[in-house]
């Protein structure tokens, strides 16, 4: 790197080489800079404690620590989505438990440079979106503004409170072989990664608690409290009534985990664009109880996607009318709309001059050497040095450039040169970054791996503040040319030891004196109500499927030569009706062939592609759990996530034995019981719980009615064994025995399972619960189709007039009884109720654009 700003380099005096076997694979005297080992071959002093701590563990203990780390990551569900990978949703986060340690004296130098840089970038933004004096005074090439798709013209002249465009800022740093830090990229629009840094901290401090204490590591919580204060302080109505929401692009975004994690940690509602609406130039949150005002939007949606009306009109992620609401001063978006402008690498070529001009200071923290090809001298230099440089688009563009991680061959250089000559403004070239290395686990030893460091700053009334720590990213290969989580890198916690004792604080104790007590929480966005409803439905679907399959497997006896298995008929019929065993009644040959039949049952459990299979339900459940993560406890997430893990384990793909399957079904049922228990005991009786329970009741009623209907139609319904099977599936065997103490009879079973409102697994019980829920919900819309409440009322009335004793009469044909008609009617009513709930409470009416009248 060619520029020369002075920086201190740490670790001049190195400790003696450590004799630990952990370091057997750690070379000294690397070509580049190593964070850990000084050139002379000794461990740098600020790493001595960590080496000593790790060296004191036995190999078995080290393995245990690594396992703890992995388990904590897994249990917290820390994930990073990789685009274009069908199984990439929710890829587990890679965390290496050995932290990066940065000496305090070095950190304070970095801090000063970062604060200056944030201040500078903010001032540049304020000028570009205001008077544009930097352009007219020739300190900034006008192309930097006007050529950039990230210059949002509709936002020019929009007043930003305190001219604070950057409330939150991140920079990617790399250290060159001579030990100096450089900024590789600026993140001014949506600085991602702070949540991952926090998650890494929680896991690492639990994996290495002794070392964490001994290092007196500076805590991250204070930084997030500042962030909270800053965001609430932006509220146009004042901080006391500020409602801050975190606007997410949705679960398919690569950092969705982080968004949900931060929303929960900071105590903000996680919303999608469709949850918000603009009325009278104000932003409102659509909840089940109506509209609630929003004051501050902490956004994770890109600048130009934030408002389809005035910005990109093809965006489905934003809020139509948002720009005008911001302009009217009724809502504040952080970072300010348009702040992506200065993260273009081309700006780096101008920063030293701009720093001097604007702040009257030398730029403390240099950027990686950058040439903007719009300038003739720079262009000539770049064209002569294409083999050494990385060429990038100067402005976000459609251009496809060669992979920057690979050096260009001659043909590649010629192609790039042609692009540059045709439209030089569009390109910048940067020096290739050599990353420093730091110790990372490889099997049982530590080896040097290239690392980059992302650091975060928040604007406070006293100026910018740096998070004491950061997200250290580790390159997957030894090349050290390119670091990207998209390409499968790993990450680390970053420790800044404190010279003074650290104070503990949590975000919850923010204001102890002035707490307004709240009991309601009836502000559930309708999108989330939808997700909770389906969470309830799928959890019960999984439960019912598992029970039916478990009983089927148990009753299925390959030794019975008849093979007809009439005992199973109602169970199989139910599974067929609900989709798990499609067409089984039309395949009599299956019932003759024990192996084929068993395979069919196993497929209904394990086949992810089969609609309604248990595995598919578990998969749906995990996805839904992700969608409501900011509204559910960690325990609930863990239970559902483990449920799905059970099917994804390698043993699940081996040849399955019935015995294995039984084991998995049992575990699944216990997992679901845990989930339902958590829902019942741990969720407040607010709307989230209500919709979850409505989903559950509705689904259970569907399965119960289907099973009862199949039983009535089964030729051997009177066979006590068939009835026993039914009782087993609906978990009523014990109740039945305690009540009747005799073999099962049709009227007694139907009374218990259909009509007994004391039995939580009876149809009537489900319908009564639904009716209670409807009482507590906001009124249904007058213009919405179907009235759920009314249909539930009709079902209830019908069930109340049904008497199971009519089945006792020897002359009666069961399928022609009033009871049978009641079951049929209930089965028909249930989907109507579900549709009515969706139409009344989940209506996220689709957003559409009016054709922009064309011109001829």
């Amino acid at each position, binding site marked *: 790197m060619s520029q020369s700003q002075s920086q201190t380099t740490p670790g001049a005096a190195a400790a003696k080489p450590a004799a630990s076997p952990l370091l057997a694979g750690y070379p000294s005297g690397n070509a580049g800079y190593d964070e850990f080992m000084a050139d002379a071959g000794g461990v740098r002093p600020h790493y001595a404690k960590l080496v000593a701590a790790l060296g004191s563990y036995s190999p078995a203990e080290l393995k245990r620590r690594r396992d703890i780390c992995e388990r904590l990551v897994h249990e917290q569900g820390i994930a990073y989505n990789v685009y274009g990978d069908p199984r990439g949703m929710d890829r587990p986060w890679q965390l290496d438990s050995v932290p990066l340690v940065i000496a305090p004296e070095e950190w304070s130098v970095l801090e000063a440079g970062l604060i200056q840089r944030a201040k500078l970038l903010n001032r540049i933004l304020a000028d570009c979106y205001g008077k544009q004096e930097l352009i007219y005074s020739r300190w900034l090439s006008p192309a930097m503004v006007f050529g950039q798709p990230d210059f949002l013209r509709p936002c020019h002249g929009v007043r930003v409170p305190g001219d604070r465009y950057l409330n939150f800022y991140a920079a990617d740093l790399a250290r060159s072989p001579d030990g100096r830090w450089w900024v590789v990229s600026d993140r001014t629009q949506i600085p991602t990664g702070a949540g991952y840094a926090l998650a890494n901290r929680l896991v690492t401090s639990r994996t290495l608690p002794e070392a964490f204490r001994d290092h007196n590591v500076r805590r991250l919580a204070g930084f997030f409290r500042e962030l909270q204060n800053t965001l609430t302080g932006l509220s146009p109505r004042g901080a006391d009534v500020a409602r801050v929401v975190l606007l997410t692009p949705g679960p398919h975004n690569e950092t969705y985990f982080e968004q949900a994690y931060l929303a929960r940690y900071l105590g903000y509602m996680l919303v999608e664009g469709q949850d918000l609406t603009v009325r009278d130039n104000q932003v409102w949150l659509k909840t089940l109880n109506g509209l609630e005002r929003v004051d501050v939007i902490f956004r994770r949606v890109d600048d130009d996607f934030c408002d389809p009306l005035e910005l990109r009109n093809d965006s489905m992620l934003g809020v139509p009318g948002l720009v005008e609401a911001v302009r009217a001063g009724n809502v504040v978006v952080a970072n300010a709309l348009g702040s992506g402008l200065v993260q273009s690498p081309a700006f780096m070529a101008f920063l030293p001059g701009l720093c001097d001009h604007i702040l009257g200071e030398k730029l403390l923290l240099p950027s990686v050497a950058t040439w903007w090809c719009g300038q003739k001298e720079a262009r000539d230099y770049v064209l002569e040095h294409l083999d050494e440089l990385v060429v990038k688009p100067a402005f976000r563009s459609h251009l496809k450039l060669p992979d920057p991680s690979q050096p260009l061959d001659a043909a590649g250089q010629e192609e790039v040169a042609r692009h540059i000559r045709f439209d030089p403004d569009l390109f910048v070239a940067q020096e290739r970054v050599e990353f420093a290395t730091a110790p990372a686990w490889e099997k049982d030893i530590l080896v040097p791996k290239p690392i980059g460091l992302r650091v975060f700053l928040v604007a406070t009334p006293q100026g910018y503040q740096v998070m004491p720590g950061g997200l250290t990213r580790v390159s997957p290969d030894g090349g050290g040319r390119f670091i990207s989580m998209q390409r499968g890198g790993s990450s680390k916690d970053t420790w800044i030891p404190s010279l003074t004792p650290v104070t503990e604080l949590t975000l919850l104790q923010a204001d102890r004196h002035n707490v307004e007590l709240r009991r309601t929480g009836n502000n559930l966005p309708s999108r989330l109500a939808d997700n909770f409803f389906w969470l309830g439905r799928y959890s019960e679907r999984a439960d019912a499927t598992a029970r039916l399959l478990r009983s089927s497997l148990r009753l299925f006896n390959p030794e019975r030569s008849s093979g007809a298995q009439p005992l199973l008929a109602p169970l199989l019929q139910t599974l067929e009706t609900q989709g798990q065993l499609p067409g089984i009644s039309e395949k009599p040959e299956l019932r003759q062939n024990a192996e084929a039949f068993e395979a069919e049952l196993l497929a209904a459990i394990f086949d992810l592609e089969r609609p309604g299979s248990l595995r598919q339900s578990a998969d749906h459940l995990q996805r839904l759990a992700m969608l409501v993560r900011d509204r559910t406890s960690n325990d609930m997430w863990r239970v559902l996530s483990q449920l799905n893990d059970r099917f994804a384990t390698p043993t699940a793909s081996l040849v399955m034995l019935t015995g294995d399957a039984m084991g998995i079904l049992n575990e699944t049922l216990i997992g679901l019981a845990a989930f339902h228990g958590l829902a019942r005991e741990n969720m407040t009786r607010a709307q989230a719980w209500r919709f979850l329970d409505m989903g559950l009741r509705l689904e259970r009623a569907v399965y119960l009615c289907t099973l009862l209907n199949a039983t009535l139609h089964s030729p051997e319904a009177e066979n006590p064994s068939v009835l026993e099977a039914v009782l087993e599936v609906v978990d009523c065997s014990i109740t039945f025995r305690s009540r009747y103490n005799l073999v099962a009879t049709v009227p007694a079973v139907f009374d218990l399972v259909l009509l007994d409102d004391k039995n939580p697994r009876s149809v009537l019980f489900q319908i009564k619960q639904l009716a209670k829920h409807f009482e507590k919900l906001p009124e249904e819309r007058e213009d919405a189709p179907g009235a759920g409440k009314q249909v539930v009322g009709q079902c209830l009335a019908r069930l109340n007039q049904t008497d199971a004793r009519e089945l006792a009469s020897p002359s009666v044909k069961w399928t022609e009884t009033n009871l049978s008609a009641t079951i049929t009617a209930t089965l028909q009513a249930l989907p109507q109720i579900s549709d009515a709930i969706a139409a009344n409470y989940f209506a996220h009416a689709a957003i559409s654009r009016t054709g922009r009248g*064309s011109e001829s």
Partner: protein
Amino acid sequence: MNYEVTHRTLYEYAAPVSVSQHVARLAPRVTATQSCSAFTLEISPEPTLRQTRRDYFGNELCLFSLQEVHRSLEIITHSQVAVTAPSLRPAESAPPWEEVAELFRDPVSPAVVGPYQFVFDSPQVRAAEDLAAYARESFTPRLSLLAGAQELTRRIFTDFKYDPKATTVATPLEEVWEKRRGVCQDFAHLGIACLRSLGLPAQYVSGYLRTRPPEGKPRLVGVDASHAWFAIFCPGVGWMDFDPTNNCQPCEEHITVAYGRDFGDVSPVAGILTGGGRHEVKVSVDVVEV
């Protein structure tokens, strides 16, 4: 020449719309050769909120939102406009095009920052090497800027077929280029892309064109249409209009409504609806000489 323009846009929605927000750019601009003595914009149903301001390019913008359930939306404008013919200078008097392009290479003088904004790619118009090659056949070395623009206008008119069925608002320029067909909007975009590919600033202009009925036939009401063309920046003169759809330099029969980098900046009416389902739009424009 004095005109009275009536522009009517009617949206009919298949399903009720609960909320909608719209942006309209329908007020004629005031320019060196055009004045607007009266302008009204009627919206029905009556919007809950309605604001007027200027956009980044100085066009008058009306933002309005309807917050009551509605099934249709009608927007009617009446404008009274006076247009005078620009003093068309001889093409040869303009500087060679290379000199103009040189003005817009770094370092660019703050004096031409205004037109400089129109050199860059915009969402719907991207410079390309094949477009530059096409443009160079018109802009021969050292040719005057205006002569080049006239020639480019003529070639687009000749090489491309006017065909309202060939494209829609969303058709990318690459497709127009391949099919050699399109409408005024496509030809304006094409001209702009060619000019920008040579490093020359070019603007998109939207407006109306007065149409003349065939000889001996009565003038029909409402058959006129929105129109679009491009403008090129000529140092010392300013923006000069060219209409590649009609192979002419707009004079007294073109009425200017808005300028921008491309259609996206000047779209006459754009809206976002909640609900609505499929919708139909009917547009009629009536330009009457008074």
